[in-house]
Structures are given as structure tokens and as C-alpha cells.
């Protein structure tokens, strides 16, 4: 496994770093679900619980200038990209200090080269356009776009696949297949096979079924390497599991089913097994403090006023 694209770290602090990234998303999202009933957040939210290894594994490979386009389930992607927890809490709370000053809310983030939108599928051609723009400008930047399995229902995605492939956009499609869309199981929404959907447009698709951040990162490195060297768009199909409800309290799966998923597929214990208990405790303590402080700071932040319009 070549890690040429990652910042140089020893294997030990690399593992620590990843655990921290995973745990940071976990704590953020747990806090969101825990605090939602208190009325501090506006609207609704889609947490990334259970899927943390995807964002962390893939986005660790980013280089300066690379672009991420994310969807409704964007908190994990945003945090793994390096986004600030306080700014994200503040955005969910509709505060002036939020990522988009409270205008966007949970699904509509923009910061540096990170973007998200809450309309299924429509982000795919936009991401292709970004990738092409960087190519046309002669920039080495690549683009990563995150999509869910349910989003394979949207036609515009296939227009994007065709265009990306035709014009060799430097783009990685990351398809997070948690086998459910809101409440609809994959089987009721998808005919044929996901990988074949990409391949039919001449886009190679690599498939992985794990919650372990290491192989996800390895595969993403490999594919992003190909994208960077001009091989055209690539797809990474990540079979994964959603631990939480779709948004809040709208899970139609049995608690038993979810318990099973958590036992079998939690990325945190898998990564924790690579660390000493001391490190785990230390990272957890630090992140707990960070997230709790971020939440409290956001809560004290001002609401936007009419000038923001």
C-alpha cells in the first residue's frame, strides 16, 4: 500500500490520527441526536453513525486543492475533510457563526473546497463539472463525490457518469451502500448490480465490504492515484451500515437488527484494536472535550439578523 499522498506519519500516530477522526464524527453525531429533542437545532439532520470509516478512509487521501461534493448525509464528510465542529454545530443551530451563517443548515455546507447539497443526484453532474474545470485549468486537483445507494434511482446521475467518462473527468465516485434509503431497503429500489451501473459507462468500479478504515483508505489511495494520473473517473463502492435512524427517530428496522449491525460492523472497535488503551482513553477524552466545547460555544453564538439577508 502506497501512502505517497498522505502527510508523513509513523504507523502509530497514523492509527491514532484515524481513530481520532472516526471518534470525532461519532461524538459529533451522537451529540446531535442526543441534543435534538432539546430544540437547539433547526429542521432535521442525517447522521453518519456507522459509516465513519468511509469518510475518514477516503478523505485522508486528499491533497491541497482537492474538492469534495457531499450529499444530505454530510456531517461526517465535512468533519473528515477538516471542518470545524463548532461551525457545524452552529450551522445546525442556525447561528451567524455557522459554516454558511445559518442559511444552509445541516445539508447545505460550503467551506474551502467542500460543498454539499440536499437534492439527491443533482450534485453528481456538478461534481463532474468541478473535476473538468480543474482539468481544463491545468490544476492537479481531483474531485470526490459521495452518493448513497438510494440515489442510484435518480436519472441525472447517469448523465453525469456518461459525461465524466466521455471527457475523462478527474473524479472519484464514492458510493456508500448502506442498503437503505430513508426506510426503503435496497432490494425494493435497485434492479441489477451497482458496480455494473458504473461499468456500463466505462467507469471501473472497485467494491469493498468492510468497516475497517485501513482497506478503505488503501483502495481510495489506489483509485485516486489512477484519477490523478489521468486514467479518468473511478468508482469506489463501499458496502456499509447506517447505525442511526435516517434522520431522527424514523428507523423502521428492529432494534435487534441494529444491535447486530453495531456488533458486526462498528468501525471504532476495529480501529481501536490498533491502539493502546491509554491512547484510546486520551483521544476520547480530548475529542469529548472538543465536541462538548464546540457545542457549548455554538450554543452561545448569536443568531443572524436581518443584515444577513
Amino acid at each position, binding site marked *: 500500500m502506497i501512502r505517497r499522498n498522505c502527510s508523513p506519519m509513523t504507523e502509530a500516530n497514523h492509527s491514532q490520527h484515524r481513530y481520532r477522526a472516526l471518534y470525532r464524527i461519532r461524538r459529533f453525531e451522537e451529540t446531535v441526536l442526543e441534543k435534538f429533542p432539546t430544540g437547539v437545532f433547526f*429542521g432535521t439532520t442525517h447522521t453518519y453513525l456507522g459509516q465513519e470509516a468511509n469518510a475518514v478512509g477516503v478523505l485522508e487521501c486528499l491533497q491541497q486543492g482537492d474538492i469534495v461534493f457531499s450529499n444530505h448525509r454530510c456531517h461526517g464528510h465535512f468533519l473528515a475533510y477538516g471542518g470545524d465542529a463548532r461551525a457545524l454545530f452552529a450551522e445546525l443551530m442556525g447561528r451567524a457563526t455557522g459554516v454558511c451563517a445559518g442559511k444552509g443548515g445541516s445539508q447545505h455546507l460550503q467551506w474551502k473546497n467542500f460543498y454539499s447539497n440536499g437534492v439527491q443526484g443533482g450534485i453528481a453532474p456538478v461534481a463532474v463539472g468541478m473535476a473538468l474545470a480543474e482539468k481544463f485549468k491545468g490544476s492537479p486537483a481531483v474531485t470526490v463525490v459521495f452518493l448513497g445507494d438510494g440515489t442510484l434511482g435518480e436519472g441525472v446521475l447517469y448523465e453525469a457518469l456518461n459525461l465524466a467518462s466521455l471527457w475523462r473527468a478527474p473524479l472519484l465516485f464514492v458510493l456508500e451502500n448502506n442498503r437503505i434509503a430513508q426506510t426503503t431497503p435496497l432490494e425494493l429500489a435497485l434492479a441489477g448490480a451497482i458496480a455494473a451501473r458504473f461499468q456500463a459507462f466505462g467507469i471501473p468500479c472497485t467494491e469493498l465490504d468492510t468497516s475497517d478504515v485501513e482497506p478503505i483508505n488503501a483502495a481510495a489511495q489506489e483509485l485516486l492515484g489512477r484519477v490523478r494520473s489521468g486514467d479518468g473517473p473511478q468508482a469506489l463502492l463501499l458496502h456499509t451500515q447506517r447505525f442511526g435512524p435516517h434522520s431522527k427517530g424514523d428507523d423502521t428496522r428492529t432494534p435487534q437488527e441494529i444491535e447486530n449491525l453495531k456488533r458486526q460492523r462498528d468501525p471504532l472497535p476495529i480501529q481501536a484494536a490498533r491502539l493502546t488503551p491509554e491512547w484510546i482513553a486520551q483521544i476520547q477524552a480530548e475529542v469529548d472535550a472538543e465536541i462538548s466545547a464546540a457545542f457549548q460555544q455554538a450554543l452561545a453564538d448569536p443568531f443572524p*439578523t436581518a443584515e444577513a439577508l
Partner: protein
Amino acid sequence: MAMRSVLESLNQGLLRAFTAIPSVYLLGEDVLDPYGGAFKVTRGLSSAFPQRVLTTPISEAGITGLAAGMALRGLRPVVEVMFGDFITLIADQVLNHLAKFRWMYNEQVTVPVVIRTPMGGRRGYGPTHSQTLEKHFIGMPGLHVIAPAAIGDPGDLLYQAIHKTRDPLLFIENKLLYLLPLQSEEQADFTIETLPGADKPAWNGLPESTFPTPCYRLRVRGAPPATVTLAAYGYMAHIAQQAMLELALEHELFCELIVPTRLAPVAAGEIRASVARTQRLLVLEEGTRALGWGAEVLAQVAEAPGAGLRAAARLAALDLPVPASGALEALVLPGAPEVIAAALKLAEKQTLSI
């Protein structure tokens, strides 16, 4: 009997349609029980009619096209678009397929499809889940647009639409309407009249709809004759009622409120009739102003010979996306305080011009 909510009424209307009409099918995302749809309007349907309730992939255009095909072959499909914000995805199917077929094919076919969708903000869902977009669909030849308020029997309106329409019909449900109790004519604070519906929409060539789409007139009970006409539909009618009470009690300004349920073809006759008495018109809408329903109403009133219009205004959302933050959302979407202010402004004009 407990007061029914709009949600219960709509749900019962759907159940009634499924029970009475074997050709009714439902297509929508996440409509199966126990979930029963994102806003629960379809709850219970899939248990009672498992063969005729189809939960679909996330393919708004695809399922709308499917419904068109089903309707062309004699069924009566109902489509649920989970959020009204996504009707943009069905625009081509609606405008260039469903709404065109009957006329373009020389009346040799009918396309009885009802497309239901929830619109509206005030829940902090942010820019892509809070919009009021029906204005972009009102005024497509061949498309009917209907919107219930928390008045009368929304479920029956839906039932009639499913049962009787020969043309594609967009049925707009404001999200905040769902939990409101239905108002009836014995409403404590208001008198509610159902207007005769003299106002048959003139739709060139396309025969009018074959079921009644009531239009209501509300007045504060016991108030003197109104000097301002308010016009609103859907949830804005509810906001208008709140404003009317306060205008009457605090400002001694008396309004009558006209609440149509038919939005397309636009029928402003009942509004014109009210304005003929009051000479002042304030049109309310939750969507943005430009080329909105209010523009058409105002235009129809202004065009009418002898309208006797002395002052007119529209109150609509600011010309911006709907922000997620409640602090901003309340500034962008029109609420009762804005209605009150706008009505007082209109009335001041009256004072000045006397």
C-alpha cells in the same frame, strides 16, 4: 367526535379513493407502512391495499412518467413527491408529457394523474426542503392545480380529484396545514361561507374540471362590513385568519378573506366580487412574489372593466431561498405580523385618498 386534522382528512380521502375505485394506484418514495410516507399522509394504505401501493426508488421523473403511462391505459394513479421542492424534477414530464397528451393527441386520450406534494417552510428544513414552488406550475396548459386549506373537507377534495379528474392535477399540501384542525362553518371566531363557485375557470378548449373546487369567504364573526379583501390559499389562509382577528380587535380594521382551493386554471372571480365591495385587495402567498399566484390575481382584477380597485398589494416571501436558521426564515417568509402591517398600510392609503 374529536376535531379531525387536515392530515387525517387527507389520509381518509386516500383510503376512500382506494376503497371505492379499483383503478387507483399509489406511487411514492417510502410510502409503505409502518412508515407510511415522510408526512404520513399515506399511512395505512399499503397495509390495506398492498397490491396497489408501490414504494418507489428515488426517481421523481420516472414515477411521474410511469403514472402517465398507467393513466393513458385506464388507471388512476396518484403520485406522491416527498417534498414539493423536487417538483422541478418532474417539470418535463408534467409540461411536455402529462399535460400535453390530451390536447396534442386531439382528445383521443385522457391522463387522470393526481400528483400530491407537501410545500412550505417554517420548519427549518433549509433551502431545498422548504420552498413553495407551485407558482412555477400554475399556468401550464392542461394542468390543474389545487390546494386545500384547513377549511371544509380537504380529504373529500382529494377524493374527488382522484375520482373525477381527466387531466393531470397537482395537489399542493402545505406542511404546516397537516396538523391543523379542520374548521367548519360553526367556527367560533369566524363565519365561513362556501361561495357558489360561479367562477368556472375559463380554459380555452380544455373542458373544465368535473368536480367542485370550493372557494370560501371568511369574516370575523359579528364584524361590520369589510373594507379590505384578503386573498390567500393553503396555510397562508390560516395566517390570514390570525391577522384578521388582531386587525379587528386591535385596529378596528375589518377584512374578508377569500380562500380558493383551485389555483389553476386561476379563477379570480370570487376575489373580484369581494374587491368590488371593499375596493382594496391584499393577496398573500408563501412563495416568492414574482410571477406568483398573487401577480395573476392582481392582474385579473386590474384588467377587469370597472374593477373599482383603489389599492392593491401583494405580500409574499422575500426573493431569496428559504434559509435554514429559524431566525432568518421568519424574516423571509410572511407571517401574521407582516399581514397586519400590510393590511394597515393598505388601509392608510384609504385614509389618505379620502
